[in-house]
């Protein structure tokens, strides 16, 4: 028995050490970027220097350089994508969950859209936006982001609607609501937390995309990820500036992530569980 306990203790230590190592591996790059963003050019050439006089030059330069515009553009694209997604996806998710519209095909088929590589869609989207003279604007970027945000968010919403009892609508109908009123006023408020989490998740997906934004937005509609990539090539490497730009794009999604982590487990696994 004592041997068993000693062995158990050993494995506990291994487990704790492993988790600590993982946490450090995750935090290490963040720490380095934060430090780099406050370093002067001379200090940047000495990566092991941990104690240095922090300067705000990098931050001032990046904000003077128009990153606020890129930030605003990313925000606009993300919000527009999420708005359209919720308007189209919410009623459909409800119909698929509570009325089994399209059966299992609709429930799982919606995920098939995720199988299509962006490289298939980007060529026609590029040509069509060229023909419609909207290339280099945010419109094709929003359309492109819908192609992957809409299916995933709808998939999440289906699982959240699955958790709502069916009698809720019936009760509202007896009280004299039409079916659409019952949906809006009775069912929808019940899924509001899930809806919020799905919306945030969709926003993060849109915010983080670079492939579509690079090709469809071009030079004129640069979202944040495209702008960050620009610090890499423009006049060589500006490490300090780039660190600031990285932080500007990463901090919002990291903050948002803390709000949705719990619900994501239900969302990802859920749509299929009760199907």
């Amino acid at each position, binding site marked *: 028995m004592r041997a068993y306990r000693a062995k158990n203790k050993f494995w506990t230590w291994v487990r704790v050490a492993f988790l600590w190592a993982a946490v450090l591996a995750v935090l290490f790059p963040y720490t380095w970027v934060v430090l780099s963003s406050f370093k002067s050019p001379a200090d940047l050439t000495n990566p092991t220097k941990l104690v240095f006089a922090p300067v705000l030059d990098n931050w001032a330069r990046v904000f003077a350089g128009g990153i606020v515009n890129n930030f605003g553009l990313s925000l606009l694209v993300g919000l527009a994508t999420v708005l359209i997604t919720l308007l*189209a996806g919410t009623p459909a998710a409800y119909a698929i969950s509570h009325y089994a519209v399209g059966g299992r095909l609709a429930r799982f088929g919606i995920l098939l859209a995720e199988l299509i590589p962006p490289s298939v869609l980007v*060529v026609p989207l590029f040509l069509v936006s060229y023909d419609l003279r909207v290339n280099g604007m945010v419109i094709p970027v929003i*359309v492109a982001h*819908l192609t992957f945000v809409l299916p995933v968010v709808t998939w999440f919403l289906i699982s959240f609607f699955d958790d709502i009892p069916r009698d809720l609508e019936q009760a509202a109908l007896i009280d004299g609501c*039409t079916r659409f009123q019952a949906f809006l006023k009775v069912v929808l408020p019940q899924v509001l937390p899930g809806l919020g989490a799905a919306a945030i998740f969709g926003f993060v997906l849109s915010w983080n995309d670079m492939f579509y934004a690079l*090709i469809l937005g071009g030079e004129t509609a640069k979202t944040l990820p495209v702008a960050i990539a620009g610090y890499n090539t423009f006049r060589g490497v500006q490490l300090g500036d780039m660190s600031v730009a*990285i932080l500007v794009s990463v901090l919002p999604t990291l903050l948002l992530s803390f709000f949705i982590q719990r619900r994501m487990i239900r969302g990802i696994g859920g749509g299929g569980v009760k199907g």
Partner: protein
Amino acid sequence: MDDRRVDTAQRPFSRLFPYEWRMMTPLLAVMVIILAYPIAYSAWLSFRNVDLTKPGRDAFVGFDQYVTVLKQPLYWTALTNTFIFVAVAVTLELVLGLALAVSLKKQKRFRNLTRAILLTPMFVTPIAVGLMFRFLLNNQLGLVPVILQKLGISIDFFSADLALLSLALIDVWQWTPFMMLMLLAGLENLPEEPHEAAHVDGANAWQTLIRVTVPMMKPIILVAVLIRALDALKVFEYVYAITRGGPGAATETLQFFIYKIGFGYYRLSEAAAVSWTVVILVMAVLVLSLWRTTRGRSA
């Protein structure tokens, strides 16, 4: 009792176009515009000769574009590289993700904080991840090579031999959290009894994990691996941020190859053809893996 419903159900319009399908309409309309139409257009393009640098030569060319693509050695390099990248990254992510999920499940102190920190990488934009690691691993400015050098180890992470592996490790940093999240969800839904039974029978922790836990989690492991593999197949940002396909063609991947042909040289039909070969490959792998699991279930 609710005559209002009976009423609407008997109107001919409602019978032909029932409420639940009206609710589906916005989604279906958007899906047709943003997915069905571009997919059809892309397939059509792959049989034509659209090249933005040579306007006016557009014509139906049959399978010519596909033949051109398959004849290029660079295409096959990109295919092999992508396959190696996906295999290395997803295997490591599965092993590490499982280890993390098991460790996290037993954890008691700092439970929420640890989980919150460990999940963050998957929320970072991939281009930022690529750039962070480009400079962390850079030979002159990077912290990691400098530290390694002090220990007497000299590694060039982005040399021809190691570049692809380094990119796969970056993918591991970013996406192991996703694997961990899926497997943790699976673990927490497992019944306790089989584990207790294994314990009573004298199985140690390792035996329980391999013989009891993993087999019970097979479905969720398969789903997680499939999702990750399909996503890793689209690797683009790390290549764009760090190596641009080099040195030589060591990190040429499919998505980057398509980007170069389509939007570097503007040979749009050829780019469409390459992307359709990827779709066919993905579908084949998917059908095969699903066929194998369903066959395994019936046997």
